[in-house]
């Protein structure tokens, strides 16, 4: 029985799409029992197999060769479960609150947009609440995001927007003059999808057009913020994300117990929206006073997670905001969010693959129709500017 379980799991390793294994792993995550994951898999073997047959119409038996990848039923454009649950649904649920905290314009993005020729058509893929739409009044912006609620906020502000997927932009090739992708790609859970999103950005601009991409860095300026994140351990990565994950599988991955939970860090004396959720595309210096206990926890955490790139990053949705949504009731019932009475907030987790130094460049450098014209690190983000040359 163990062999069958392992064989089934192996099939999921090799698929692009995390599937219903999520539900088992998810409950384990919340109880923090990773050391018993293997045991549960064995016990729940028949359940696992049921999920398998329910979840997929045909399970590839021999998808180990890469050429089968493209031909398999798991297209690079299919949204993996982890993104549906821990990116899309979360942003849909927190949209108005999220938008109210996203107002500061990142100077580097503003500079890029201001440098574009007057009359440029700029495409913002993953525009969120539309913070950058219209930032250069001499340009025309068309934004898209996968979150309907966020796009609604953009539209209410008068922007030209649509709901679309950054991995499969519904745009004619070469139409835009420039494109931006600000804090988006780190929500894509496989390397192939991240690469595809970059290719799409280049595809939709004209020859000579520029593309600015920014993503969260592994190398965060404020380590105490990283301590608030939940690292997804090796088991998670293999079962939920598959072989697309680029980081090395080191047997020294630490069990969850050694990583401090959010609540254990509770030396905060108050929770304000922007402070609690200050870790965003322009991370600010932590407002948490740097207590001794925090320092030692942060250091230990940092040492333990040097290779760690997959994380759940919490978002605290205050109760008074959650009632407006209604989605939160569902999320709580489904176990996708937790209540934190102490902070008076519904806590959501967002999936992030943070980028290591050089990773974004590596993804972009294989393209034959674009070159990297600028690369920089700014406020805990890795950034590149591409120019389409063909």
């Amino acid at each position: 029985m163990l062999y069958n379980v392992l064989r089934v799991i192996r099939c999921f390793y090799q698929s692009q799409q995390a599937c219903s294994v999520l539900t088992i792993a998810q409950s384990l995550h919340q109880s923090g029992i990773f050391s018993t994951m293997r045991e549960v898999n064995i016990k729940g073997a028949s359940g696992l197999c049921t999920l398998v047959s329910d979840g997929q119409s045909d399970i590839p038996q021999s998808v180990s060769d890469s050429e089968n990848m493209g031909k398999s039923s798991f297209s690079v454009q299919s949204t993996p479960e982890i993104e549906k649950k821990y990116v899309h649904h979360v942003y849909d649920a927190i949209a108005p609150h999220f938008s109210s905290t996203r107002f500061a314009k990142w100077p580097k993005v503003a500079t890029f947009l201001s440098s574009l020729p007057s009359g440029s058509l700029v495409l913002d893929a993953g525009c969120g609440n539309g913070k950058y739409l219209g930032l250069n009044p001499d340009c025309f912006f068309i934004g898209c995001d996968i979150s309907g609620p966020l796009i609604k906020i953009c539209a209410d502000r008068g922007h030209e927007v649509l709901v679309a997927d950054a991995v499969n932009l519904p745009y004619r090739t070469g139409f835009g003059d420039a494109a931006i992708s600000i804090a988006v790609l780190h929500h894509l859970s496989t390397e192939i999808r991240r690469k595809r999103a970059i290719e799409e950005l280049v595809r939709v601009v004209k020859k000579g057009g520029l593309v600015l991409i920014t993503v969260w860095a592994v190398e965060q300026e404020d380590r105490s913020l990283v301590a608030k994140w939940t690292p997804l351990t090796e088991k998670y990565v293999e079962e939920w994300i598959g072989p697309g994950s680029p980081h090395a599988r080191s047997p020294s991955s630490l069990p969850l117990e050694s990583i401090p939970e959010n609540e254990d860090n509770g030396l905060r004396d108050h929770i304000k929206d922007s402070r609690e959720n200050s870790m965003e595309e322009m991370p600010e210096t932590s407002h948490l006073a740097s207590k001794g206990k925090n320092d030692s926890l942060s250091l230990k955490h940092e040492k333990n997670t040097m290779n760690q790139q997959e994380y759940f990053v919490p978002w605290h949705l205050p109760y008074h905001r959650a009632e407006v949504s209604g989605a939160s009731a569902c999320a709580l019932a489904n176990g996708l969010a937790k209540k934190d009475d102490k902070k008076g907030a519904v806590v959501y987790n967002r999936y992030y693959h943070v980028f290591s130094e050089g990773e974004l460049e590596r993804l972009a450098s294989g393209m034959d129709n674009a070159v990297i014209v600028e690369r920089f690190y700014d406020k805990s983000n890795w950034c590149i500017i591409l120019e389409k040359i063909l």
Partner: protein
Amino acid sequence: MRLLTHNMLSSNIKGVANGFPLRIEVEKVIEKQVELNADFLRNLFPKIEWKALLDAARTMGYAELPEEADSPMLDSDEFLNKFHHALLELHLEEGALVCPETGRRFPVNKGIPNMLLHEDEV
């Protein structure tokens, strides 16, 4: 949705050879005035598929665009005004965009097209 956006949108359903232009089903059109920017219009003109813009404008109830257009016409204020109006001032508020090959309808609500594909379309 403005016709500028419509001129860029293409059905990206798996297997579709040419998803452009999307056919427009109109339920509600509104007009919103916006300031004319000649530089912008001149920059956009080479990108525009004229026939698609012409047909779309007609579908939206605006029949003033010439059958054909070439760049010298951009020197004419009258042409610029019509081009500007069709491209930027007509909004499809409610309706749908239809894939020319599969007939799949992408809904447009409150001016927002939803171009997300279903699992079996990627």
